[in-house]
Structures are given as structure tokens and as C-alpha cells.
């Protein structure tokens, strides 16, 4: 209970810290939302001043932060200057799209990565076969993988590129619509899996390798205990440690990790929205997005810490030995 309370307080402090930083950074960063209107010779400075005043952009940042904080406590996260709609509803729809993508990708990645990691860690032969492919995938920067797959998809026309649904899909049956979404989600998911799989597999593999060489494993083998039992009872629990942190990372990044892929493939998630909001200085959207990422990150880390406790009961965070 104490632990939970502590974590909750810490989470609250973190949210406040993130929001403070957001406001502070946005104040220090040059440029305001209506600045690009200055390039239009037909718009007067008076109008820009009026617009700035309407959205309170001229007020001191501390004041604006205070107002936002007070409203946020009530659940009102402000309005987007660009869309003139409440930030919460704006983020809500997009977050749903993002989660659809990232949860699918994460499930697929982990379902594939764990066996791949374990198998390549335990079998020298398998390891050699996959070594080249895996080292290549790790070495190629994310953006290159994403663009390469995109170009392939566009050329072969096998998969639709961009958006989540085809035009006019709302008139189709549910089954057809699901199929439509599956087709659209295939490309960004494939990219995310290709990016994430080798890393996780490698970490799992390297820790499996380490554990397999430990004396007690050799002893167990010497005692005649079968390889499967060794694997599941002795190797995995220990090798799981970095993997759990990584799993926590995957959870933590559910909302923020797919930004690049979403922007490149045109998936209608949070990524393009937050990116555009950042570049156009739509403050409340950016803060809202950061808050949302922070929630997921806190949640993810929390789950990871819990799992660590469960998997390795010797860890008692904060306890003395």
C-alpha cells in the first residue's frame, strides 16, 4: 500500500513536472502560433495582436500555466488554437488510432521476439544463420527502414499506403471494413515490428547466452535435466530481467514511439497531430500530448517494476539486505 501510494505521488509529481517543463520550454522556444501570418502582407500587425490577445499568447507564462493547471484539475485541457476544439477530444480520437497500431505491433513484436531471442541464444547454429539479418536490421536507421518499406509498398501496390480506411469504406459491411483496416495497418505494423524485433530479440538472446554459460546451468545439464526444463525453469526467469525493462519500455512508448512511422506512412494517429502542433506552437495540444505520453510512460514503467518484483523476488526495491 505504501509502495502504491509512493508511486502515485511520484506519478503526480511527474505529471506536474512534465507540464511545467512543457510550458517553460514553449516560452523559451522562439516563434508563436500566429507568426506565419506576418509573411502575409495583407494582414496587419493589429490583427495579429488581436489574435494573440484572444488566445492569451501575450500573457506571462506563469499566469497561463496557472490557469491551465486549474482547468486541468477539472478535466479541461484547453482548446487547440488551430482546430478551435477542445484538446481532450482531439487527442482522444487520434490516441485510439495510435493505440490500435502500437498495440498490434507490440503484440506481434513480442510474440516473435521472445522465441527468436531464446532460440538464437540457445542454439549456436540458429544464431549464425540469423546473425547477418539481425545485425543488418539493427544497423539500418529507423527512418531508412520505414522509407524503404514505404517505397516497396507503393511500387508493388500490394498494400494501401496512408490513412486507416479507404475512401467510402464507411459504406461497406463490418467485415469488409475490418479487412480494410487490416490492410491499412499492415504496412506501419510491419515497419514497427522490423524496427523493434531485432533489438528485443538481441537483448533476450544476449541474456540467455549469459545465463546458459553460468555454472549452475552447466550443473543442471550435468545432472541430466532436460533442455526444455532448464530453459523454462532456470534460464528464462533470470534472462527475463532486461527483457522486462524492455517490455516496460514498449508499454511506455505505446503512445509516443510510433511518431516517425505514423508521419511517414500517414497513419492518422497522435504522431502527425503532435508534430504539427509542436511546429505550429499550438501549446495546449503539445502539453496534452506530453501528458498523455507521460501517463503511458508512468504506467509502463510501473508495470515493468511490478514484473521485476514478481520475476525476481529477491529484489525488494528500497529494502536493505
Amino acid at each position, binding site marked *: 500500500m505504501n509502495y502504491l501510494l509512493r508511486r502515485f505521488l511520484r506519478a503526480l509529481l511527474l505529471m506536474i513536472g512534465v507540464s511545467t517543463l512543457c510550458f517553460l520550454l514553449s516560452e523559451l522556444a522562439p516563434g508563436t502560433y500566429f507568426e506565419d501570418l506576418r509573411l502575409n502582407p495583407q494582414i496587419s500587425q493589429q490583427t495579429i495582436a488581436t489574435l494573440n490577445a484572444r488566445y492569451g499568447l501575450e500573457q506571462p507564462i506563469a499566469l497561463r500555466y496557472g490557469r491551465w493547471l486549474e482547468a486541468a484539475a477539472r478535466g479541461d485541457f484547453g482548446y487547440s488554437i488551430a482546430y478551435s476544439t477542445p484538446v481532450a477530444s482531439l487527442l482522444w480520437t487520434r490516441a485510439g488510432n495510435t493505440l490500435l497500431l502500437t498495440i498490434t505491433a507490440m503484440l506481434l513484436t513480442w510474440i516473435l521476439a521472445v522465441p527468436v531471442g531464446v532460440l538464437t541464444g540457445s542454439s549456436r547454429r540458429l544464431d549464425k544463420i540469423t546473425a547477418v539479418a539481425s545485425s543488418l536490421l*539493427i544497423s*539500418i536507421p529507423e527512418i531508412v527502414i520505414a*522509407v524503404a518499406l514505404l517505397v516497396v509498398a507503393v511500387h508493388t501496390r500490394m498494400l494501401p499506403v496512408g490513412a486507416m480506411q479507404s475512401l467510402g469504406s464507411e459504406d461497406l459491411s463490418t467485415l469488409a471494413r475490418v479487412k480494410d483496416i487490416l490492410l491499412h495497418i499492415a504496412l506501419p505494423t510491419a515497419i514497427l515490428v522490423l524496427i523493434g524485433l531485432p533489438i528485443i530479440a538481441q537483448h533476450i538472446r544476449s541474456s540467455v547466452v*549469459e545465463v546458459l554459460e553460468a555454472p549452475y546451468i552447466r550443473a543442471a545439464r550435468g545432472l541430466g535435466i532436460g533442455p526444455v526444463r532448464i530453459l523454462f525453469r532456470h534460464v528464462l526467469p533470470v534472462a527475463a530481467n532486461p527483457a522486462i*525493462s524492455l517490455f516496460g519500455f514498449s508499454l511506455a512508448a505505446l503512445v509516443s514511439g510510433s511518431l516517425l512511422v505514423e508521419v511517414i506512412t500517414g497513419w492518422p494517429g497522435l504522431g502527425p497531430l503532435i508534430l504539427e502542433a*509542436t511546429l505550429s506552437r499550438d501549446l495546449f495540444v*503539445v502539453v496534452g500530448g506530453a501528458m498523455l505520453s507521460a501517463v503511458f510512460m508512468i504506467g509502463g514503467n510501473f508495470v515493468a517494476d511490478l514484473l521485476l518484483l514478481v520475476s525476481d523476488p529477491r529484489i525488494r526495491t*528500497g529494502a536493505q539486505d
Partner: protein
Amino acid sequence: MRRKIQTRLLIVALIGLHLAVLFAGFIAPYNPETQNRELPYAPPVRVHFNYSGKVHFRPFIYAETTGQGTLDEDFSRPYPVHWFVRGDDHQLLGLFNSNLHLFGVDAPAQMFLLGTDSFGRDELSRLLYGGQISLAAGLLAAFVTLLAGAIIGTISGYYGNWIDEALMASAELFLALPWLYFLLVVRALLPLHVSATMSFMLLIAVIAVIGWARPARLIRGVVLSARTRDYVSAARGFGASDFYLLRRHVLPQILGVLLTQAALLVPQYVAAEVTLSFFGLGVSEPTPSWGNMLSVLQQYSVLRSCSWLFAPAVALVITSVIYWLLADTIRYSLKSS
């Protein structure tokens, strides 16, 4: 035995790579900043060996090509490749001036072994010179980030309690940071023109500030479990100091994670320069770096038509693979020791 040969090969490859980059001035035939405005997007020159039956190196100059990727060779005159030629001035290792180059051809022919970019600058020269900055920045940035992450993660995992809470909370703060704003702020606070060394240091610093949190959390997790091992408790019972415990029992555990992360981060950080240049924090024109050469590939037309401009990506991948395999080998050898 096979491992030993493999390791030797890898080390040779790595040294060769770094030497090539270090001696870019000598190996590169041209100055990386010289524009040949008549020959933008020129494909790699074709090296011929056969001239009416005789076997010798003979590249030919080609006529002006301004389209994408068409190789027009002017067959009127062959230009033999010479070794150890005099050419553009350059500085070797930043120490002494020279104008000796490994190979070259007579003017007005140009030997573009990897073609040219949109300004007609020799891609091979840019690749070699660019490697200097990118490799150094990538390695240094990964080193600094991992060092910071390792120290913080170890302290956090080892001492536990409120130290752990505080450090991990600040790690989470950094992870949740809207780093795009951060980059904007950094750029705004700096003077407009930053010298080459400064911008290099800056690259590394920015990457480290944004990047330390993740490895720190990973390492903390490993240290947490390593700390509570029985042999650690036993050693402590024997009066071993914290430092000894860390060095002897905890460190080897995290080495694996560190090596894996290092091999992962280096290519990421080199590619991160693409994003940083968007904010004006990268290496600026006309100085080449693999990062700013890669940003050209964001244009679809370049992707489709100018395959030779993938050179920095290929070089990056090759370098990363070598580092990765080497890291792997080191891990194996550490285990068996």
C-alpha cells in the same frame, strides 16, 4: 579457432575503415566542398580496362548530364588513372598540409567513383570526409550517453531507496520531455554561427541529454537483480566495499547490456543528425557528414533515381554491422574468460 580468425578480420576491417576516414584528405580525390555545377546528380563514373585491346585503368570523362542518372561518356579521349597525384590542398590529420592524393585523373576529366550530389560535389570525397565527423560524433555520443546512463543506472539500482526513486523519476521526466521544443530552445539560446568544433560538441551534448534515460533504466534493472544475488551478499558479509562489489560482480552483468546498447545507439545517433539539422543543430553546409548527406534521401525523386546517393547509408550500415559483430565477439570472449 574460427572465432579468433573472425575477430581478427573484424578488427582489421574496423581499423581499415577508420584509417580510410582518418586519411580522407589523402584518399579522397577532391575537395568535398567543390561544386561542379555542370554535373549535378552525375552517376558513378565507369572505370574501363579495355581500350582497343590494351588492358590498363582508363576512365572516360562524360558529357554534361543534368538529368537524373544518365551516364553520357565522351569517348573522344581516354583519361588514364594515375596513382599518387597532386591535386587539391588538404590537411592531413589536421596537422600538416599536403596536396598528394591516392589517385586521380588529369583535368578536365573528373573521377567520380560514387557520382555526384545535387551540387555536383564528389560523393566519395564527401563520404570519406563526412565519416570523420559522423563516426566520431556517433561514437562519442554513444559513449557519453552510455557512461551517464551506466553511472546513474548503477547508482540507482545499487543503492535503491529514495536515490532510486529520485533518479528514476528524473529519468522518466527526461523520457517524457517534448524534445522537439528542447531542440528549438537550444538553437535559440546559441549564437547563430557556431564553429565546427562547437557544433560537433553540441551534437554530442544534445544527444546525451536526450538519450541517457533509457539505458539508465535498463541498467538499473540489471543492477537491481545483480545486487541481491547470494554471492554479493556473501561478499559483503566478508567485508567487501561497495566499490569492490560494483566492480567485481555488478559491472560484468551490465557489460552485456552496455555493449548491446552501444551497437544499437551508434547508427541511431548518426541518423539522428538528420532531425537535428532540421532545427539547425547539425553540421551545416558545405561541410559533409553522413547525417546531412542522408537527409537528401528524404526526397522521393532522389530515392528513385540516384542510387549512388545511398552511399552514406550503406557506409553507416557496414560500420554498424562491424561494430555490432565486434561487440558480440567481445561479449563472448569476456564470458569465456
